[in-house]
């Protein structure tokens, strides 16, 4: 079939191209745009009718005119070729190699949007992943197939935390087929270098697929990048039977790009100018985590986002939190007093924790111990805010103990070294140690048998 070349460009903006009189375009179809100077760019159909077809342009529209620009439709949606060759490679936001390697050729080309997993076909994620980080393992346990984002703020140590999770969770699953898919979305080159360095030093690069779109590169590619990453992850997990951890950093940049297109299309904006469909759009990314009945592999997603002005009610963390199975929240105030990882466990949550802990997975006391630690820490923090008003002297004995508990909990439980890989038993034992600061009679969340068995009261 001979492809028609259109020269009917009507309007060009910095992200969109409007084309007149296209008869054959289909929704979501990929198109090739050729500029007068011979430069070629890709575009994707956002809407089409008899008068006008709107293309989203990947790349710089500078230099594009309405007279000489040519557009050819490819007849297919955006696809990414998958094969074993993608492992160990670094791609850009359009899936082109950005290392020195050759392009990947494969007959197996996958639509990057994937298809929704049939809810009936899902298997409930329930396998414990030991990250070696107490605030996560003990309080907000991660399980295989979960989507658990890190909510951070600018300047906080989310990169270190993400790297540590990748590094340490790997060890537990050494014997199994295990891969990391890393998607760097609009990150700066220093962050990119940090991760690449980590992967190379730990030897993880041989088990990784990396997609990078740097801060100075076209923002429209940020829309494509997470979908490429997940297409690669789905191939490895559900075709190759591997356990895949997908890190997407920073989803805030993704949402900004989404807003940019929406604004360019004059859409009715939702909260703070983000499009009304941002929830569904984010869901089409995050819901690609999981396990499937009858298949060995799994996709665990750890998206990282920076909350604008640390505001958890901002649309980006807000909508994310409604889709993901919990969140790990990094706190500026803990970071300031030198706690690493500065995870605020009270606002953090793992919705799938209960499935991944207990007798057969971690230890029988895990659930009630963490409940008690939560309650005690919440109480301790409340007392801490009380002193600001009434002073420490006015505290009752029990309040003083809670105050001490909260301090120790942050110093000994949450705080750990970047290279410290705590076993789950160690994490739980520290928890019991800390509880013994309080009176035994305050242990309302724990059954007496467990207190007898694991308690450290003298």
């Amino acid at each position, binding site marked *: 079939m001979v492809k028609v070349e259109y020269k009917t460009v009507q309007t060009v903006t910095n992200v969109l191209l409007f084309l007149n009189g*296209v008869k054959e375009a289909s929704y979501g179809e990929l198109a090739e745009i050729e500029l007068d100077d011979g430069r070629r760019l890709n575009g994707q159909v956002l809407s089409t009718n008899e008068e006008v077809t709107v293309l989203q342009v990947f790349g710089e529209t500078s230099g594009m005119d309405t007279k000489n620009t040519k557009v050819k439709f490819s007849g297919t949606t955006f696809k990414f070729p998958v094969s074993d060759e993608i492992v160990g490679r670094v791609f850009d936001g359009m899936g082109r190699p950005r290392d020195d390697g050759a392009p990947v050729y494969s007959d197996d080309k996958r639509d990057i949007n994937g*298809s929704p997993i*049939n809810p009936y076909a899902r298997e*409930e994620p329930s396998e414990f992943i030991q990250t070696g980080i107490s605030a996560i393992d003990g309080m907000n346990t991660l399980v295989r197939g979960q989507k658990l984002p890190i909510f951070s703020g600018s300047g906080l140590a989310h990169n270190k935390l993400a790297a540590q999770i990748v590094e340490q969770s790997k060890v537990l699953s050494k014997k199994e087929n295990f891969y990391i898919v890393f998607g760097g979305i609009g990150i700066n080159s220093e962050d990119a270098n940090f991760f690449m360095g980590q992967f190379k030093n730990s030897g993880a690069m041989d088990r990784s697929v990396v997609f990078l779109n740097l801060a100075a590169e076209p923002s429209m590619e940020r829309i494509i990048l997470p979908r490429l990453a997940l297409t690669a992850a789905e191939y490895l997990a559900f075709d190759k039977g591997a356990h895949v951890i997908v890190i997407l950093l920073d989803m805030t940049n993704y949402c900004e790009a989404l807003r940019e297109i929406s604004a360019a299309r004059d859409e009715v904006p*939702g909260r703070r100018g983000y499009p009304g*469909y941002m*929830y*569904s759009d984010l869901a089409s990314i995050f819901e690609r985590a999981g396990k499937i009945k009858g298949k060995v592999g799994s996709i665990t997603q750890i998206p990282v986002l920076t909350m604008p002005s640390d505001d958890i009610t901002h649309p980006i963390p807000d909508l994310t939190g409604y889709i993901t199975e919990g969140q790990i929240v990094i706190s500026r105030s803990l970071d300031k007093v030198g706690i690493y990882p500065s995870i605020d466990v009270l606002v953090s949550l793992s919705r799938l924790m209960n499935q991944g802990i207990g007798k057969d997975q971690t230890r029988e006391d895990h659930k009630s111990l963490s409940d008690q630690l939560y309650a005690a820490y919440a109480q301790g923090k409340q007392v801490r805010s009380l002193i600001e008003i009434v002073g420490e002297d006015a505290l009752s004995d029990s309040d003083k103990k809670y105050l001490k508990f909260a301090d120790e909990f942050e110093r000994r439980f949450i705080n750990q070294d970047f290279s410290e890989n705590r076993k789950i038993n160690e994490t739980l034992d520290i928890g019991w140690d800390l509880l013994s600061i309080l009176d035994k009679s305050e242990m*309302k969340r724990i059954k007496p048998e467990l207190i007898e068995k694991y308690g450290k009261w003298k």
Partner: protein
Amino acid sequence: MGGRIVSVSGSVIIADDLENAKMNDIILVGDNGLIGEIIKMDGSRAIAQVYEDTSGLRLGEKVINTGNPLSVELAPGLIGSIFDGVQRPLDLIMKKEGVFIKSGIKMNAIDRTKKWHFKPKANADDDVEAGQEIGEVKESSLVKHKILVPPGSKGKIKKIADEGDYTVEDVIAVLEDNGKKTEIKMLTKWPVRVSRPVKEKLPPMIPLLTGQRVIDTFFPVAMGGSAAIPGPFGAGKTVISHQLAKWSDADIIVYCGAGERGNEMTEILTTFPELKDQKSGKPLMDRTVLIANTSNMPVAAREASVYTAVTIAEYYRDMGYNVALMADSTSRWAEALREISGRLEEMPGEEGYPAYLARRIGEFYERAGMVKLPGGKTGSVTVIGAVSPAGGDISEPVSQSTLRVVRVFWALDAALANARHFPSINWLNSYSLYTDNLDQWYRKNIDNDWPDLREKMMSLLQKEAEINEIAQLVGYDALPEKDKLVLDVAKIIREDYLQQNAFDDIDTYSSTNKEHIMLEIIQLLYSTEEKMMDQGVTLDKIDNKDIKQLIARIRYTKEDEVSSLSKDIENKIARIGKKGALHGKS
């Protein structure tokens, strides 16, 4: 001659030259025949929302009008099934098409080949009216599926099938009315956007008992009533919705996951067949219908999913069952409305939601109700909607429009959830407008003192909040002894009564009997200690540690052991009361 596509934008398409196109007709779009619904007419053009992924749809592809509105199939076989938003059976789709959902799949909601054992319940020559039972099929271990004369039909039974096995498409009865014959099959259809007719709505007078202490005691919902659960993410909306689906004493549960997580539906699918119904001991799945249109499934089908769910609920209501419908989350449904409205370029109302948002929400909750059925029976649909307000702030349009129409408000509180106080229903902000209606039932079926006890407990909790404010200024030590006592007892109510562990085998469900015992004991402790204070005993002199620990154990105690434990506690309270009396005299 069919129509053709002239525009595609996301889930909205425009078709031209479509024959006999009418508002809300179902159309088949494109070469794959994707399901769509006409939502606007403009001259010869029909604008439609498409219930499947539209990627790859091309201008000029054909469009066919079915001429029918969006309808659900109603027949034995619904119970225990899982459907998507437009009632396609997800279990069968997986068997046929694999684990990913592709566009263009066509499949009947109800199996046409399966045979059901039909027992006639009416005789030839009987005069029957719409809604009257003419037969019965055992659909699951818990549900007897009543075969009713469909709405709009009546007459004399000319023929009725003998007891035996029939498919849903076999004719099981023939009616004659003024010479007009109507064949009745087990399979009927009903348009989802139209509520099934009712003779009369009755005032809801019976509580839907949920086994959740904070709900059953303080903020009960009535059978046939409506309730909303707004809360920020992580506050436990889904856990509460699941708890209600598990333990509420409805006969049928319809659970609609609209735009929520896939794994949540999986959790229901894995746990419900294992869990046992409180009354009968049969698997919970045997009374449950699931509608799953998860967040990554097409957005228009999400809009349809709540209507599919409520229509199925009404169908079982008409058989005389008490049905509870959980819709999680109505906000995602509202967002689907917003998205489609945006694509239609309608003038937006608040926060981009369409101007008809409040009306749609009102219409949906209005489909709840306790209704009178032919033959003096009743049936009910209770609608419980989760709301996910942006940023947890309920001043937004979906929460506000919902609160205007529902009568129970369970306010989920992030601060409580962060301290792992679950269910995180804030006792100071929540309300139930049914308590007055239901008091009569509680008095008659549990104890005459129930309303009184409830009010006493609530006033202690309210006093606690006031005293805490004072304590923040003057310090705890400076408080009067009686205020300290209120704090002490309120803490028991909060920690040992309001809190409930959904993941503990025993605590997950509390009978009203157990609740009543707990309330009485807490009240007894409070009144005893209060008396002791009147005699001059201070709080730190009251040795109630042991008693408090025992009270904390009640929630983890099996139903049949509760009364002996409570006797034990009562004796201990009496003993300290006596000691107090001595102390006071000395």
